[in-house]
C-alpha cells in the first residue's frame, strides 16, 4: 500500500508526527516500510517558476526553440524541443543542479546556444499525468517562487507492506485509525452527503448468495466523462494508480480511501439486468487489461442477461467499462466471499488492487457508505443525477463479542497489566467495551474481522502497550534435558573434514536428464509442478550430480583439486498417496591434480584419495563395510564396486566415465562414492591393549597383471598366516623394466605379532615360506623376499 504523508494528514486531525517520525512509527504497528522517499528530492532549491518573455528559433532548425525565461531576479536562456512553448507562458524551470530522476541538469551548449536550464513537464517532476509537453502554471502564478508546494511535491511517500490478515490497512482511513490509536488524533471522515434525486434502480439478481452476501448497484445519469482535475490525478499517482477518466479515477480513489473496491459499468452496455452468478464452463471475458480470459464454474462473475461483464471482485470487462462516450453508469459496491475471489485469482493467475482487498476479506459495513462517497464525488466532478441505491443483502454480519479475562492476559504476558490500562488501550482502538470485575466485554467492529478470540485482542493490546515493555524471563527448565540428535551424519562430517575433505551443500533440485545419466530412474523422480526451471524440476535421487557440478565449478575456476563431500537427502517417488521416500546419503567426490611444491611431487588425484576418505569412515562403522567389484556402467562409472554391509548393498564407488565428465565439463579424472547412511551405525569404541611383545615383518614382492587386484593374495595370507599375521601394508608398486609390460610388481609388508610371546624368527619363517610356496603353486611369480 502506497500512501503519502499529506494524504494521511487529510484524514487525521492534528497529526503530531513529522514525516520521519511517522516512518519510524510504522514498524511498531507491525507495518514494514518498504520504501520512504521525499517527492521533491533533488528538486528543492533548483526549481523555480518562470515566464517565457521571448521565443525564437535556432537558425534554420525548427526542432529547437530558444526561450528567454524570467525567473524573477534575472532571466535565463533555455533551449527546448517542447512543442507547446509560447510567449507569456508560465513554466516550471529546473536550474543547473536539479535532479530529474537519474539525470542532473547542467548548463550546456545546444546548436551553439548556451542553455542555462530546463523547462519541465509534469512527468519530469515525477507526476506522470497525461499532458503534452511542458507544464503550464496558472496565469496568476507568481514568477520566481518554488512551485513545489503548488504541485503537491512537498510530500513524502511510504510504500508499506501490509500483512494479509489486515485488509483494513489497505485503505487510507484504516491506516489513519491505526495511527490514531497509537498517537491520538480524531479521524476526519470524508464527505458522503449526496441527494438521491431519482428512483431508478438496476435489477439485481444474486444467484450465489454465499459468494456474494451483499451487492449494491446505483444508477447515476447524465454524467460528463472527462479528465480528472489535477488534484485527483495527483493523489492517484501518489497512491500508485494511473489516472484514466474522472469516473474510473473516483472509483479507484474511493477504493484507496475505504479499502472497498468499487466498479462502475456503462449502463448502456449492460443488457437489462445485473446477475451475480458462477461462470459457465468455457465462458470467456475480454478484460479491461485487453486480455481475453476463459472462465470456469469456480469463478464468480457479474453478468447481464447475456454475458459476463466482470469477474466479481477482480476485474471488469472492457466492453462495459466507462469511457468518454458513457452518460449513464451503474456503480457497484459489494461484499464478496474472500475464498471465491482467491479462487478466481488463482485460476486466472491474476491479482488486482481489487482482488487483493476482497481476497483478504473486505468490510461488509462499508459497502453502502463507499457507494455514497463515490456518488458524492461523481456529483462534484462529473455532474449528473444520482439515483437510489439497490442493495441485495442475504446475510446480517454480527460483530464479534469477546470476553477478555485479565488473568488470561496477565498469564500470557507473564506480568500484570493494570485493568485500567487494558481498558484505555481498547478504547483507543475504537472498539466498544463494557468493563466487568474480572474481564472486559469487547465488541469488535466488522472492519477488524481478523480478531476472533481473546488472543487476537491480546496482540492489539501488546502493540499499543509496547512489546518491549514485557520483561524477559527465563524459567528454570530442569525438567527438560536438552540434547542434540544422535545422528551418524554429524560425526561423519567431522571425520571427513579432519582429513582434508570439504563439506558442500547443494540444492535438492535436479535436472532429470542429469539424474538419468548417473543411473536415476524416471519412475523414482519426485516432480515439481511449478519448478523455477528445467534444471530444478525434480528432486535429486542421488548426491552425485550435485557433487560433480561443484567439482567442475571449482576446477574450472582454477582450484587445483577438489576433495568434497555432502550429507543430504535423496528422494524417491512413492505414489500420490504416500510421501516420497527420503534417505540420508553421504556422497564423496575427488578430482583434479596436486601441484608440485618442495615437499611433495605433482600427481593426479586418484581412486586412492577417494578410498582414503572411505577408509576413515569405514573404520568407525559397524558392521564392517566391504567393497566388491561391480559393473556400474549404467551409473556412468568404471573401476567400480558395490559397498556392502552385512551382504546388503548400501552404496557404491567408482571412477566417473569420460562421457559423464564431458557432460559436467571436467577434464581430470573424477572418483565418487555414495553411501546410504540410514542403516549404518558407529561401532562402539573399546580400548584394545597396547601389544607388549615386539612385532616382526617380512616383505614380499609379487608380479601380477597390471589390472589384477592383490586381494586374492591378501585373502590367502589371512587364511594361512593367522593368527600371527597382524596387518599388512603395500610399500611399493612398480611398473617398467625389468617387469614385463602389462604387469606390475607389488611389494607387501606383512607384519607378525603374537599377543602372548615374542615370536621366534624360525616360527615366522616357517609360516611365511609355506605361504610363499602356496602362492608359487598357484602360479604367482615372486620377485623377491625380504625378512
Amino acid at each position, binding site marked *: 500500500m502506497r500512501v503519502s504523508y499529506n494524504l494521511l494528514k487529510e484524514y487525521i486531525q492534528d497529526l503530531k508526527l513529522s514525516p520521519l517520525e511517522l516512518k519510524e512509527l510504522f514498524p511498531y504497528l*507491525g507495518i514494514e516500510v518498504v520504501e520512504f522517499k521525499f517527492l521533491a528530492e533533488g528538486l528543492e532549491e533548483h526549481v523555480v517558476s518562470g515566464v517565457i518573455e521571448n521565443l525564437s528559433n535556432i537558425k534554420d532548425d525548427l526542432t529547437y526553440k530558444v526561450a528567454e525565461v524570467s525567473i524573477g531576479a534575472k532571466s535565463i536562456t533555455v533551449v527546448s524541443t517542447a512543442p507547446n512553448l509560447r510567449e507569456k507562458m508560465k513554466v516550471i524551470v529546473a536550474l543547473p543542479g536539479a535532479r530529474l530522476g537519474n539525470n542532473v541538469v547542467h548548463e550546456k551548449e545546444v546548436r551553439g546556444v548556451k542553455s542555462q536550464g530546463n523547462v519541465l513537464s509534469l512527468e519530469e517532476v515525477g507526476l506522470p499525468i497525461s499532458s503534452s509537453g511542458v507544464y503550464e502554471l496558472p496565469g496568476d502564478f507568481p514568477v520566481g517562487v518554488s512551485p513545489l508546494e503548488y504541485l503537491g511535491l512537498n510530500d513524502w511517500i511510504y510504500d508499506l507492506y501490509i500483512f494479509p490478515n489486515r485488509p483494513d490497512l489497505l485503505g487510507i482511513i484504516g491506516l489513519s485509525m491505526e495511527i490514531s490509536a497509537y498517537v491520538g488524533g480524531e479521524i476526519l471522515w470524508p464527505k458522503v452527503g449526496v441527494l438521491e434525486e431519482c428512483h431508478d434502480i438496476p435489477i439485481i439478481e444474486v444467484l450465489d448468495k454465499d459468494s456474494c452476501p451483499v451487492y449494491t448497484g446505483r444508477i447515476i445519469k447524465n454524467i460528463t466523462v472527462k479528465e480528472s482535475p489535477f488534484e485527483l490525478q495527483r493523489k492517484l499517482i501518489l497512491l500508485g494508480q494511473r489516472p484514466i477518466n474522472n469516473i474510473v479515477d473516483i472509483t479507484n480513489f474511493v477504493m484507496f480511501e475505504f479499502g472497498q473496491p468499487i466498479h462502475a459499468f456503462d449502463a448502456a452496455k449492460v443488457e437489462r439486468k445485473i446477475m451475480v452468478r458462477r461462470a459457465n464452463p468455457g465462458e470467456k471475458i475480454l478484460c479491461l487489461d485487453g486480455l481475453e480470459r476463459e472462465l470456469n464454474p469456480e469463478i464468480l462473475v457479474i453478468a447481464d442477461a447475456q454475458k459476463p461483464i466482470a469477474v466479481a471482485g477482480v476485474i471488469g470487462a472492457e466492453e462495459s467499462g466507462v469511457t468518454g462516450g458513457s452518460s449513464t453508469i451503474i456503480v457497484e459496491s459489494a461484499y464478496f466471499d474472500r475464498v471465491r475471489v482467491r479462487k478466481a485469482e488463482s485460476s486466472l493467475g491474476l491479482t488486482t488492487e481489487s482482488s487483493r482487498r476482497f481476497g483478504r476479506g473486505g468490510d461488509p459495513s462499508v459497502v453502502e457508505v463507499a457507494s455514497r462517497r463515490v456518488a458524492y464525488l461523481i456529483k462534484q466532478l462529473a455532474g449528473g443525477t444520482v439515483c437510489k441505491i439497490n442493495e441485495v443483502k442475504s446475510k446480517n454480519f454480527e460483530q464479534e463479542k469477546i470476553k477478555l479475562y485479565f488473568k488470561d492476559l496477565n498469564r500470557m504476558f507473564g506480568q500484570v497489566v493494570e485493568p485500567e490500562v487494558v481498558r484505555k488501550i481498547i478504547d483507543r482502538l475504537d472498539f466498544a467495551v463494557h468493563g466487568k470485575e474480572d474481564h472486559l466485554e469487547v465488541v469488535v467492529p466488522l472492519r477488524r474481522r481478523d480478531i476472533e478470540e481473546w488472543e487476537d485482542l491480546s496482540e492489539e493490546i501488546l502493540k499499543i502497550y509496547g512489546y518491549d515493555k514485557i520483561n524477559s*524471563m527465563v524459567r528454570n527448565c530442569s525438567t527438560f534435558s536438552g540434547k*542434540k540428535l544422535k545422528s551418524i551424519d554429524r560425526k561423519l562430517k567431522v571425520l571427513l573434514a579432519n582429513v582434508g*575433505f570439504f563439506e558442500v551443500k*547443494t*540444492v*535438492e533440485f535436479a535436472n532429470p536428464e542429469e539424474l538419468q545419466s548417473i543411473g536415476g530412474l524416471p519412475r523414482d523422480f519426485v516432480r515439481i509442478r511449478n519448478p523455477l526451471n528445467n534444471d530444478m524440476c525434480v528432486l535429486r535421487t542421488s548426491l552425485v550430480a550435485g557433487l560433480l557440478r561443484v567439482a567442475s565449478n*571449482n576446477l574450472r575456476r582454477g582450484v587445483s583439486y577438489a576433495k568434497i563431500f555432502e550429507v543430504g537427502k535423496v528422494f524417491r517417488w512413492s505414489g500420490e498417496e504416500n510421501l516420497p521416500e527420503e534417505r540420508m546419503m553421504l556422497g564423496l567426490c575427488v578430482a583434479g591434480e596436486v601441484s608440485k611444491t618442495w615437499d611433495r611431487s605433482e600427481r593426479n588425484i586418484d581412486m586412492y584419495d577417494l578410498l582414503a576418505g572411505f577408509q576413515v569412515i569405514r573404520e568407525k562403522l559397524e558392521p564392517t563395510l566391504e567393497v566388491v567389484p561391480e559393473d556400474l556402467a549404467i551409473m556412468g562409472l568404471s573401476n567400480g564396486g558395490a559397498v556392502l554391509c552385512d551382504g546388503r548393498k548400501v552404496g557404491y564407488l567408482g571412477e566417473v566415465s569420460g562421457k559423464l565428465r564431458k557432460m559436467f565439463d571436467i577434464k581430470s579424472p573424477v572418483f565418487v562414492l555414495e553411501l546410504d547412511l540410514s542403516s549404518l551405525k558407529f561401532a562402539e569404541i573399546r580400548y584394545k591393549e597396547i601389544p607388549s611383545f615386539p612385532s616382526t615383518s617380512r616383505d614380499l614382492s609379487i608380479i601380477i597383471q597390471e589390472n589384477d587386484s592383490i586381494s586374492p593374495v591378501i585373502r590367502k595370507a589371512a587364511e594361512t598366516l593367522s593368527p600371527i599375521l597382524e596387518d599388512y601394508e603395500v610399500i611399493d608398486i612398480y611398473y617398467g623394466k625389468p617387469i614385463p609390460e602389462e604387469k606390475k610388481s607389488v611389494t607387501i609388508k606383512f607384519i607378525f605379532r603374537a599377543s602372548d610371546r615374542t615370536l621366534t624368527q624360525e616360527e615366522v619363517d616357517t609360516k611365511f615360506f609355506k605361504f610363499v610356496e602356496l602362492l608359487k603353486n598357484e602360479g604367482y611369480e615372486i620377485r623377491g623376499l625380504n625378512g
Partner: protein
Amino acid sequence: MSILDEVHSLRTEIEKDWAHIDSIESLENFRVKFFGKKGKVQDIIKKISLLSPEERREAGRLINEIKVKFEELVQERKEELLARLGSDTYDLYITPRHLEVGNLHPLSKVVDELLDVVTGLGFEEVGLNDAPDVEWDYYNFECLNIPPYHPSRDMQATFFITDKMLLRTQTSPVQVRTMLQRKPPIRVVHAGRVYRVDAFDATHAPCFYQMEGLYIDRNVSFAELRGTLEVLVREIFGEKAEFRMMPSYFPFTEPSAEGQVRFGEEWLEIFGCGMVHPQVLRNVGLSPEVWSGYAFGLGIERIAMIKYGINDIRLFSDNDIRFLRQL
C-alpha cells in the same frame, strides 16, 4: 724474555684466538695449535721442564692452570658446536609442509552452534525421522491455521508436487508432528531445509535452512519467549547485542512478533516468533484452556551472513572451496 713473560704472552694469544672460534673447524685448529701434542702449550711445558724447580714453580703453575681451563672450555665448546652441527639451518619463511585439512560447511557450523545454545536451554532436537522435506499440505499449512485459499499463503510461495503434497515452506510442520506424537510438556528444536518459489539472487534462494523451537506447557508466557530469545541473541552475537521485539504476523501464532537485533544503525530481523495460536493447539487436540506455548524460528543463512559478513546468499550453495576454506 723470561719464561713467565712467555707464558703470559701465550695466554694473551690463546685468549685472542679463543674469541674468534665460530665453528667446529676453527675449534679444532685452535686445539691443535695450542693444546695438541705438538702444540704451543706442550712446547712451553717442555721448556719449563728444563728449568730449575724455583724457576719452574710459578710458570708451571700458570701454564697448568691455562691448560686445565682451556681443555675444559674446548670440550664444552665442542659439544655446543656439535649439537648445532647435528641440525640444518632453517628458513622460517619457506612455506611449510602441506597438511590436508578440510572444513565443515559454514551452515553446518552455524546450525551446530545454535543447537548447542538451544539444547543448553533444555530443548531437545527432533527431526531425524518424521520431519520430511516433502510434506502434506495439511501439516505445512492447514494444521497451522492456514486453510486453502488463505491469503497468507501468498507470504510463502510454494513448490507443489500434487494438490496435497508440497515442499515444506517452513520447519513449522515439525511442530505439528511433534505435538501430535507427544504429550506436553514439549520443549523441542528442529533444523532443516525449507523451500520457497524464489529465484536465486543475492538475498533469495529457492531452498534454505531454518531452525524452529517450540515450547508447550502450562502457563507459558510471552515474557519467557522474550527471555529465551535474549539468551540466544547474547550467545550468537555477544553480550552487548541489542534486542527488541516488534509486532508481526504469522497465522499460527498470536500474538506474533519479530525479534530484531541492532547492527549499527539498522535493526535486522532475526526471529519470527509468537505464542502458539489457540486454533493450532485445538488442531492437534490440545486445549488452549490448559496448555499454552511459544514458538520461534530463524533463518540459518541470515545468521551466517551476519556472523561472517557474507553479502550473497548464493555463496552457500556455490561451494567454492576458497569460500569453504575461510569460514
